[in-house]
């Protein structure tokens, strides 16, 4: 088991309601030191609310929330010295320039690395002399990202940080997170961009309607899903439909298409081998599929609840 002292973020049974809307309903989330943790969920699942409770901006109704082992509501300012946060919607002061905001946020966090600040401004191609109201959404996000990444902190909390960035800037962002991680720091990355999560994250948590539904490394989670296989074989493909774990089998002459539970992939490939493989494409499960599996059945699940 993981050493609890090493957990940068440890949330247990978190509840938070706004009026009669239950935003969080018993959420657990753990981020260990040195990991990049992906935080996935559809809109309104409670990702931003979780992050705001974690930052002491909102008060938890029930449950325990530990940030660096401390209480983020009581010791917010002290704990915030050790982290930097980029919200999903960056709102800047209309009369302050981007450069001023970077310095202001850096100063309030306890100082900026000057060299890194200059380097980041250049890499993100940010014009720091523009006033807040003149920036586009992507540029506002860059301002907050530069301020966060140039700070000397142990934890980055990022709430959909690339939603306004173009693909080139997304690549720059990915590099920056890699650099940050190399220094042994931790990241909580809430995102919708699955490719980004797959590329960056060591572990992911998937949440839905205020609770976590799945947590683990990507490898762990892949066991829960299916690999799609398409192959052309020498012999007439028979007997495949009898294999355990094979689904949605389609046979067109010598070509076969099917999906197989990842645990039974070996047996299925063995069976294909006996038929004489000519071509073989195997598509590993993507996070998209994981995602769809958890969110795709939203309607039926709720109908059942209503009936019950």
């Amino acid at each position, binding site marked *: 088991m993981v050493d609890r002292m090493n957990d940068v973020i440890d949330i247990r049974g978190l509840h938070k309601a706004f009026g009669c809307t239950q935003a969080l309903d018993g959420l657990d989330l753990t981020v260990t030191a040195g990991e990049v943790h992906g935080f996935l969920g559809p809109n309104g699942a409670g990702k931003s609310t979780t992050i705001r409770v974690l930052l002491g901006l*909102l008060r938890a109704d029930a449950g325990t929330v530990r940030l660096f082992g401390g209480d983020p509501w009581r010791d917010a300012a002290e704990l915030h010295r050790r982290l930097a946060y980029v*919200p999903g919607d960056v709102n800047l002061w209309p009369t302050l320039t981007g450069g001023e905001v970077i*310095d202001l946020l850096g100063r309030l966090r306890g100082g900026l690395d000057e060299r890194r600040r200059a380097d980041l401004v250049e890499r993100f191609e940010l014009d720091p002399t523009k006033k807040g109201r003149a920036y586009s959404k992507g540029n506002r996000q860059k301002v*907050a990202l530069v301020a966060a990444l140039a700070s000397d902190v142990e934890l980055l909390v990022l709430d959909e940080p690339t939603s306004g960035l173009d693909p080139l800037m997304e690549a720059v962002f990915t590099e920056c997170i890699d650099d940050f991680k190399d220094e042994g720091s931790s990241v909580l990355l809430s995102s919708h961009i699955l490719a980004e999560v797959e590329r960056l994250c060591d572990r992911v948590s998937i949440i839905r309607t205020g609770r976590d539904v799945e947590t683990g490394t990507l490898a762990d989670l892949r066991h829960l899903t299916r690999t799609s296989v398409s192959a052309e074989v020498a012999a007439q493909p028979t007997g495949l439909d009898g294999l355990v774990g094979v689904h949605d089998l389609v046979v067109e002459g010598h070509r076969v298409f099917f999906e197989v539970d990842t645990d039974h992939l070996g047996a299925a490939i063995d069976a294909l081998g006996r038929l004489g493989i000519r071509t073989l494409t195997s598509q590993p499960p993507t996070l998209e599929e994981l995602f769809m599996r958890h969110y795709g059945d939203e309607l039926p699940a709720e109908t059942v609840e209503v009936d019950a």
Partner: protein
Amino acid sequence: MTGTSTFIRAFLRRDRWLMFWWVLGGTLLYYSQTTTGDIYTTQAEFDRAAKSMEENAAFIAMAGPARALNTVGGQVAWQAMAIGAIVAGLMSMFIIGRHTRAEEESGRDELVRAAAVGRHAPIVAAAAVAAMANIATALLIALSLLSYGLDPVGCLSIGVAHMLTGFAFTGVAMVAAQLTDGTRAMYGITGAVLAASFALRAVGDVAENGLSWLSPIGWGQAMHPFSGERWWPGLISVAATVALVCVAFALFARRDVGAGVWPSRPGPQRAGRGLLNPLGLAWQLQRGSIIGWSVGILLLGLAYGSIGDDVEELMGTSDLTEQMLRPGSSITDSFYAFAVVIIAVIASGFTISSALRPLGEEDAGRVETLLATAHPRRDWLLGHVVMTVLGSVLTLLVGALGLGLGFALVTGDTDAIARYLAPMASYVAPVLLLGALTRLLHGAVPRMAFLAWVGLAFCFVVMFFGELLRFPSVVADVSPFSHIALAPAEDVRWTPVIVVAVVALVLSVAGQVAFRRRDIITN
């Protein structure tokens, strides 16, 4: 012009509640003045009261030229038109601002401009909606007064005057919206024009030197509703409106969408030391408002001060003057005691808006990022509290200096320069109490924070119409202003000042503690 009608429908839908309250408020402002007629049992009593009002320069400065004050119609026109014009101006400003400059600033304007709409459609639609709101208010004012039984010609005249003043300020707002690329700056420019219009007519009406003819509010009042109506001053309003709208369109044609006529210059690459000190951000955010209000209040003080010792001739010897007169003080001192209160009550507008600024920051979503740094919540709010307190003290101080300077300039009495400092200082406490009330609302029930303005309106009514409307003293005593001595007519009494200040401190601390214990507003 393609799409104008679509825009008008969309704006009306977005604004339906906003317009409902503005129109209702504007109408009630006029209609409620009909109660003046109910106070007096006989016409003789009414005549006497009217005479005392006519001779009261402070009332004339607040309301307008005194005409037919011994009739209900005359009272309605006198008491409601100047404030009503400000209401019409603010309503028009907000309607124009939120549909033109604010949309451009937020970028939503680009989204709609990409659709098949004419270049001028949004601004034409905004102007049309502002016009409709002014027409609706005017119509309701006229109908409500007609239902009370006032003279139909006067009802028509007062409605038309209100409407045309609203149109003129709509034109001002449309020009202001072209000048800068910021909505806040646009409101600042329009607000300054409104304040200047009020100050010009206040000084003009008291001194009868023609300055009122430079003010759109003066044009409306010059139509003399209920006191021998004349229509030609309305043409001045119409001409001014046409000219302003033409200027607005000419400026609009010459600028890029999203930009202002005054170009936005690039700012500093790095934050200066001023921004990085603990009070830096709060000062940066509030300094425009602090400077603007200070200048406005200074001008107001100068305007009142420049009435000088003419007051003695203007005041007469009526009952009301007797009421205002404190034993053993001169008429001049009594008048200036009221001027001090008027300035203090108006300066409370700064205090409340400044105390609401942190809420505005929360609503704009700018607090989340700030409070996720090592900046404690307590300190963030405290920065704004310091700005509210210092800004309030500053505006009151310059108001007192303005009074003294104006007086000294007119009379040559240099001792007067410092005369109003101590009296004004005693009003710091009730002004800050309104700020503290605002802070408590912001901390405890942020959605209800706008009620602080109701508190100010209450103090205003108690102060200026309390004796006229014969409020029971229990009600009047709720207003913190009621407890402060009317200096320089009376000696400054510091005990009530200290009590009010302590209450203010308690409310403020309660508000600050409540803020630390609640969720930050997020969207």
